[in-house]
């Protein structure tokens, strides 16, 4: 048995507010294998982005911090690692692409410099070599005439181009893990498609494992191997992507899959109402109530759900679900 590339164990992240720690992520464990693409899905406020930031030790502190658990990267715990060590990992072993390409690049430096400095810091390359590497990266991510474009400043590029530059920065050190947090949400659909094609190509070339955070079920289906669904800071379902789409187990997951309109060719004659998940995600400070946090919104809620929070159970087929319905069926 090999150790996974990344293994998160019992992670808890809390934000301090008025003197108390309010957990926004709890009991979170998952593994990531070499070269695998893992999708993390959920509505906003479910703890997806903060989980991603925690992997790089970037939880904004204060007020946030990792209060429990381990983040094992190749067996080494990154929780509590020294800043110096984290800086060696960031951008080099694990790198990240953010949601907002318009604001994620420094406006006062050229894009070439912003790629090159990463290579200089991690590989100790000379200025000239690092610049050459930056130009190569620009060409790799599909920016035309990269040797001239390297001298451009971010404001001279479109949103799609900037996101390509972000990807170039993330990949310049050939990381083992690439975390992409809603990388295309701010972009147009046709540009989104270009970026995802680029991800697929680069994955083949570089072989990095990818963690893709998104709220878009279509994107997950198209891009990932395995999916993890988060609700209110917890993992509630995990499994291979095909089963996630075709046979979701948790009522929240099935709600997510069926509440979006699907493009159909040819279109149906009669339009039916979409499935609705009522209500909203509870605020983190309301999570201390007993019972399953999804129970107030669940259409299959049972009396038990309101009193006890179901634990994550491993099913016979290897999928994991945290729902009393599973136990009822099994029993």
């Amino acid at each position, binding site marked *: 048995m090999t150790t996974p590339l990344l293994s998160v164990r019992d992670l808890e992240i809390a934000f301090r507010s008025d003197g108390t720690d309010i957990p926004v992520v709890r009991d979170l464990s998952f593994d990531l294998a070499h070269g695998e693409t893992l999708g993390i899905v959920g509505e906003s406020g479910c703890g997806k982005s903060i989980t991603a930031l925690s992997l790089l030790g970037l939880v904004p502190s*204060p*007020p946030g911090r990792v209060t429990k658990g381990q983040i094992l990267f190749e067996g080494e715990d990154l929780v509590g690692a020294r800043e110096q060590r984290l800086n060696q990992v960031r951008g080099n072993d694990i790198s990240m692409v953010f949601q907002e390409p318009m604001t994620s690049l420094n406006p006062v430096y050229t894009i070439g410099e912003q790629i090159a400095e990463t290579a200089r810091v991690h590989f100790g390359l000379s200025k000239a070599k690092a610049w050459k590497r930056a130009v190569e990266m620009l060409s790799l991510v599909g920016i035309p005439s990269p040797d001239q474009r390297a001298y451009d400043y971010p404001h001279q590029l479109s949103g799609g181009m900037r996101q390509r530059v972000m990807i170039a920065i993330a990949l310049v050190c050939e990381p083992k893990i690439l975390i992409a947090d809603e990388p295309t949400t701010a972009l147009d659909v046709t540009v989104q498609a270009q970026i995802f094609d680029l991800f697929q190509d680069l994955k083949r070339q570089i072989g990095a494992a990818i963690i893709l955070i998104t709220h878009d079920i279509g994107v997950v289906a198209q891009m990932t191997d395995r999916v993890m669904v988060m609700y209110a800071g917890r993992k509630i379902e995990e499994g291979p992507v095909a089963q996630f789409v075709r046979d979701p187990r948790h009522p929240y997951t099935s709600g997510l899959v069926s509440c979006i309109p699907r493009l159909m060719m040819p279109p149906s004659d009669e339009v039916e109402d979409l499935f*609705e998940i*009522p*209500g*909203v995600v509870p605020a983190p400070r309301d999570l201390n109530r007993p019972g399953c946090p999804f129970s*107030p*919104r669940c259409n299959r809620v049972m009396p038990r759900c309101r009193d006890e929070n179901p634990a994550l159970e491993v099913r016979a087929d290897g999928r994991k679900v945290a729902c009393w319905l599973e136990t009822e069926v099994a029993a």
Partner: protein
Amino acid sequence: MTDVTTTAPKPVSPSMQAWRMFRQNHAAVLGLGILIAIIVISLLGPYIYTVPPRDMVWMPLTPPGTSEYVLGTDYLGRDLLAGLINGGRVTLAVGFAAALITVAIGISVGALAGFFGGRVDNFLMRVTEFFQVLPNLLFAMVVVMLFGPDLLNISIAIGIVSWTSTARLTRGEFMRIREMDFVKAERSIGAGNTRLIWRVILPNAAPPLIVVSALAIGTAILFEAGLSFLGLSDPNSTSWGRMIGDNRPYILDSPWGVTFPGLCIFLTVLAISLIGDGLNDAFNPKLRER
């Protein structure tokens, strides 16, 4: 489907939220307390402490604590405490009046420029730029010297050299809010420009404008003090700044003559600054962590 909760929470308006935040800010509440105390003393003090501020009442240059005039006397034998109590009125009156003029011009110019944009904006911004180039104190000196140093002229002079930053801020807020969907929504239900400017955009631009208006009072007080110090004060009234100016040649003999009026100005403006800071934090709770 509606909300999961069954009872509606109590309505909380943005102003109520801000007031709650403000009350929790000890420094700001302290500032408010100091300012109220200073205002009350300046308004009522002269009726309680009736020593005439402009007459010789004792030996000149008497140090504090050595006579019945607890803060001592100045080079003309005038009671310093009486001067401070009476001078506060003038200082505060000019401060508030000048701030009022500043804010009135600043908000009007900024609102028009920001709301209408285009040529109106271009023209008004040129005017603003012009007033920004004039060194404000020098220009106020010229105005007061040419038109005479009465309180009204002084207030007007301070007002017309101080409004530019308020105008810029107002303009920025108006430009930002003008583009927001709720303004478009108001238009789509038939709201006219007058309603949009005064009833829709201005209330939403109010928080930063209230902060600068508060601070404008402090700046105006400092300004009045500066003019008085230079001798450009109403000859018929005493203000704290004038007391410093009058006593300056005698700092070696009576340092208290400049120290106490200066402290009064400092305390007043500090109180206003604390209030301004508190308001700022109260209106932007997200920045509170700073």
